């Protein structure tokens, strides 16, 4: 006989949560694989979408912000590279967030029929976003070759920033997932938030154009520190990173992570009743 004794009681689901999460890791990898596998099924250009979207956005931003508005780049870096280095983390963040928020509703039939720690579902969709990200990273390498621009030692720290970007999307992602199940209003709110976020984050321009005295306020947006980090790592010495700003971003990211996980956990028990 197996010694697993399980007691189900109101408010008891808490107990072995993290152990359960570990135990269901195979389900996690299968769901993540599924999300990646079906992402571009029955599309004409398939995986090329992962490249086309950021590439076209980059061209538009370069023309609008770099040419028409004439905003300055950072150091000697070509404007297109500046934009692309900002687009990478932004796209990772926004795809993760949208995917996570939609994931529970689109997996409603799973949630109504089988038990597993629900956190698996939004996190698994983030893996698909990460795959997209890795593909566009190849495009970045191509662009850098094209411009004859070579990164410095800072590029070695890129994985850390990628991990941070994942964590930065995880917090708000979980929070919004939980909210989206209870209040479907968020379905409408999320695309709007993402649209706004694109303009209040330094994606199409360098954060150096924000006046010095407002910069601390600007940095409350955790993506600012993150994008600066990406630029610093990819463009090497051409871009500056403010340690203070970066720490502030870390603090905001951690806060959202805590908020997201705790809100998600609190809401999780009632998901099946609400969906």
């Amino acid at each position, binding site marked *: *006989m*197996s010694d*697993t*004794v*399980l*007691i*189900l*009681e*109101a*408010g*008891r*689901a808490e107990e072995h949560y993290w152990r359960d999460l570990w135990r269901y890791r*195979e*389900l996690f990898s*299968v*769901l993540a694989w*599924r999300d990646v*596998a*079906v992402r571009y*099924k*029955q599309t004409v250009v398939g995986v090329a979408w992962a490249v086309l979207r950021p590439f076209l956005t980059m061209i538009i931003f370069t023309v609008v912000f770099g040419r028409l508005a004439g905003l300055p780049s950072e150091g000697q870096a070509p404007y297109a590279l500046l934009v692309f280095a900002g687009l990478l983390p932004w796209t990772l963040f926004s795809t993760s967030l949208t995917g996570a928020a939609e994931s529970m509703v689109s997996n409603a*039939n*799973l*949630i*109504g*029929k*089988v*038990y*597993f720690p629900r956190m698996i579902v939004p996190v698994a969709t983030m893996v698909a976003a990460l795959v997209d990200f890795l593909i566009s990273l190849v495009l970045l390498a191509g662009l850098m070759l094209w411009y004859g621009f070579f990164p410095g030692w800072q590029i070695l720290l890129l994985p850390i920033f990628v991990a941070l970007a994942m964590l930065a999307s995880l917090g708000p992602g979980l929070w919004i997932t939980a909210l989206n199940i*209870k*209040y479907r209003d968020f379905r409408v709110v999320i695309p709007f938030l993402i649209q706004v976020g694109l303009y209040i984050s330094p994606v199409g321009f360098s954060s150096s154009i924000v006046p010095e005295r407002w910069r601390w306020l600007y940095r409350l947006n955790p993506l600012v520190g993150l994008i600066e980090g990406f630029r610093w790592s990819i463009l090497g010495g051409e871009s500056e990173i403010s340690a203070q700003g970066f720490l502030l971003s870390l603090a905001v990211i951690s806060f959202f992570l805590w908020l997201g996980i705790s809100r998600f956990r*609190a809401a999780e*028990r*009632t998901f*099946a*009743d*609400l969906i």
Partner: protein
Amino acid sequence: MSDVLIQAEGLGKKYIIGHQAEREPYLALRDVIARGAKTFARRASDILHGRAVVEGDELEEVWALRNVDFEVSRGDVLGIVGRNGAGKSTLLKILSRITEPTAGRVTLRGRVASLLEVGTGFHQELTGRENIFLNGAILGMTREEIRRRFEEIVEFAEVERFLDTPVKRYSSGMYVRLAFAVAAHLEPEILIVDEVLAVGDLAFQRKCLGKMQEVSTRQGRTVLFVSHNMAAIETLCDRVILLAAGQISMKGSAREVTSSYLQSASGYEPGAPFRPRRLTPTLSLDRFDVLPNPVESSDGAGFSLQLSSRESLKISELVILIFSAMGARVAILDLRSVGKDLVAGPTEALRLRGRIAALPLVEGDYSLGLYINAGTIREDFLDLTRLTILSKSSRSEIPPYAVQHRGLVELEHTVSLD
């Protein structure tokens, strides 16, 4: 070997549901705005308190399950029967950890796998092979286990040739076979199965029943089995629980409980007595009963009807309307056939009594209404009372198809090889 694997004590589950307030026929814009503002204020306060949004104007608490106690020992097969809405699904959902109980507790000793649906999580775009792994993982198998039993699963499902075809190209039979095959190869200590057997072709159904039996008897697994199919319940289960209105109304051997469920006399909570209701300001319906209710499919039933009116009323047409649960009109009983004038008045109510010779309907809930034509009144009055049809207690070993595949009428028939 009599250790208890499932123990439920005082189990209860409460839901809050919303009702639409009764709409007045004419509604001023002012009222619409006032009502909208009220609903909005309530929702805003729900959000502030972190409660869920409930659609509707009035809220009501409903206990889907209340004070449920039972035990299941190792190797036992417990059947759960009851009408739609009796709380079976809620009970299964609690046991499979999908939802939390509001009261009471369950102790489960051993690995639990629940099968509330065939093919949960199957993805249309993925191939049969990929779906076996996906579905297996969802049902709680490790990749290693699935790999080990892969050949067996494929053979059981009889889909070797289509393993690398996306399942959206499968026929529904193949789809179901594959889905059941994965589930049948689970190896938990406790298996929770909702009505999933009545699918696929006959040969496959036999195979499934056989597999279920093998799982419980030969492998000593504890099984909880919900079905409307009394024949399957009697073949598979040792003991059966009858749920009615969220509570256990009977426990006992399979034969005892199923026969009493079918006879609907004992153990069955008869539907609430008919509550008189006003059809129009002057006309009221004092009684509208079908007896017995529930009634077994193809059996006959009597009906009685009483109408009273404040003014003397000559009814020129009176028809009983029978609707399916989905709202399709199934049949009518034209009561003009009584052959006399139908008169209802303040001193004397109109009383009618009749009998339907046979109700060859597919099991389920039906809704009864009336069409009345009495000069000033000429109207359909819908959903006045309910009639529940139970499945025929056939001794055939062919499990019937699920209700949704059987239409509304059971036609008696014979067939032989030509």
